[in-house]
């Protein structure tokens, strides 16, 4: 076993053991949030690292959260079935929007603007169907009768949620690694360099892009559904829309777009920042966290486009050579 894998294994064991040793509910709550959002950010980075910058992920997340909650409240469908259905719904939405984009070579600015509109539209739909979704006031999944918590995927224990979120987060990292080591990665890198050249070299451009997009959208929907089940409250502004999409981009860019733990580092920084501001300034903090986010996003893109983790790893890699 090489030291790299050993470090991963030790880190994972420590993370699994943590809630059994340390039970402070507020800190566990923050950790669960960090893990769920890290998973969502990882999902975004799977696409984003290949230049497929999507601002539609707020839409996928909203579909994941709202479809799961609506199926449970209106039809009594357990989230165990509801979450896969919501993921399929988000996947179909992704295909419907992405297929024409990729088929007709809509890239760069065009792709960003189309996906941006997508997340805006999902927000509008949730708001427009306010008779069913509660509109902008938000929506709460019905409490399951006691004893049926497992069926309804509702747990009171923070430890249970922590372990679920941890499992999903590790799953997300495994998918990231799998993509990183697959042929798709080379195909996608070729595509992001030059689509025509990649196509000439025998890469099925449309299919490869669709595959990556689909994986990313499915994961994002899962993150949305989990967030809904954990928080037991969703509103259009917290799980859908342009702000959420930008929040994903921001966290990933700050953490590092091209390294597997970059999105996680981004999630740690953004969520801790928001919490610290909230605790320090209380209700006066409304708006301030986003203001700091925005300034940091601009500053990072100008001065540190590889993100914190990416830049640190780069430095570690280059220093031994110089010495």
């Amino acid at each position, binding site marked *: 076993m090489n030291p790299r894998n050993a470090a991963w294994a030790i880190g994972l064991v420590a993370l699994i053991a943590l809630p059994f040793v340390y039970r402070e509910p507020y800190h566990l709550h923050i950790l669960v949030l960090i893990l769920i959002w890290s998973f969502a950010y990882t999902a975004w980075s799977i696409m984003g690292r290949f230049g497929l910058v999507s601002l539609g992920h707020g839409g996928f997340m909203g579909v994941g959260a709202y479809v799961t909650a609506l199926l449970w409240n209106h039809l009594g469908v357990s989230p165990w079935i509801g979450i896969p259905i919501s993921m399929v719904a988000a996947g179909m939405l992704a295909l419907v929007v992405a297929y024409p984009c990729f088929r007709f070579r*809509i890239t760069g600015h065009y792709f960003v603007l189309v996906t941006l509109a997508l997340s805006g539209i999902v927000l509008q739909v949730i708001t*427009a169907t306010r008779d069913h979704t509660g509109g902008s006031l938000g929506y709460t999944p019905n409490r399951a009768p006691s004893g049926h918590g497992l069926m309804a995927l509702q747990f009171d224990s923070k430890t249970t949620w922590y372990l679920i979120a941890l499992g999903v987060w590790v799953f997300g990292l495994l998918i990231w690694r799998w993509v990183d080591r697959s042929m798709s990665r080379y195909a996608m890198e070729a595509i992001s360099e030059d689509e025509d050249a990649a196509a000439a070299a025998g890469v099925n451009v449309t299919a490869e892009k669709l595959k990556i997009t689909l994986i990313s959208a499915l994961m994002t929907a899962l993150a949305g559904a989990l967030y809904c089940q954990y928080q037991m409250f969703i509103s259009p502004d917290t799980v859908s829309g342009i702000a959420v999409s930008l929040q994903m981009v921001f966290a990933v860019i700050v953490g590092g777009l091209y390294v597997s733990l970059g999105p996680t580092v981004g999630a740690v920084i953004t969520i801790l920042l928001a919490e610290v501001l909230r605790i320090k300034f209380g209700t006066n903090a409304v*708006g301030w966290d986003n203001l700091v986010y925005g300034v940091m996003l601009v500053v990072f*893109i100008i001065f540190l*486009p590889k993100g914190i983790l990416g830049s640190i790893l780069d430095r570690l890699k280059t220093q031994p050579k110089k010495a």
Partner: protein
Amino acid sequence: MQGFLDIFDIYLLEAVVNGILLGGVLALLALGLNLIFGVIDVTWICYAELVMIGMYGMYYMVQVFGLPYWVAAPIAILLVAALGALLHYIVIEPLLTAPPINQLLATGGVLFILQSFATVAFGIDFRNLGIRLPVLAIGDMHFSYSRLLAFVAALLGMLAVYFFMTRTYTGTAIRAISQDRQIMSLMGVDTKRIYLITSALGGALAGLAACLLVLQYDVHPFVGLSFGPITFLICVLGGLGNFVGGFLAAFVFAQIISLGGLFSDLEWGYVLAFAFFIVMMFIRPAGLLARRS
């Protein structure tokens, strides 16, 4: 939003006319965005937020400082124009050589900044000018003067830009740069200056839109989100950087929103517009190819 919904009555013709009136303002917004993209090759994700700041500027000048509307409007336009130039100077200029996606995301950061700045500085309450223009009644149809005014002013604004672009040296230089970025600096045109002027012009168009929209809508920090996405769709459908395409697409979209709002909620009008957009991408992708390099 409510005032906007009230305008939609049961009459089809009325909806069509209102759609045309709405199209004027959307076309103005699309023109500003297209101008920036065509010349500087940057998309300002935060364009609608500039409009929001302009609307707040109008609110404060008219409601708080008691300036008459006609005095406040030019100041608001200048204010947003300055904001546009500032945005270019601070954010875009250091990124001119960076990948285009980075420029776009940086303006996404500015969107965050402007939205939360408005939240912090002005609060999240809905505010309006308190000016209610009379309603024009033709037969059973009702059109508010604020929309007519917006339409006429938007057209005048676009005409002014047209003459500026075709009749002045600076305008010619702007058009030339959008055709060939490299050669113009060799021809003795100060690219930096032209970029700044274009950004200010794009900001001024946002400011004009703000002056017109503030008559119809309440202003709040997230008001940009209600017309920002639709502006982007219009620009993509018309072809980014394609002025005529953007103009046409604005009216098509305005009709869809207006007619969709006639049969159902306004939000569904937006959804319908988006569905139409997806379909159009399938059948007329050529319309989108106009300025792709």
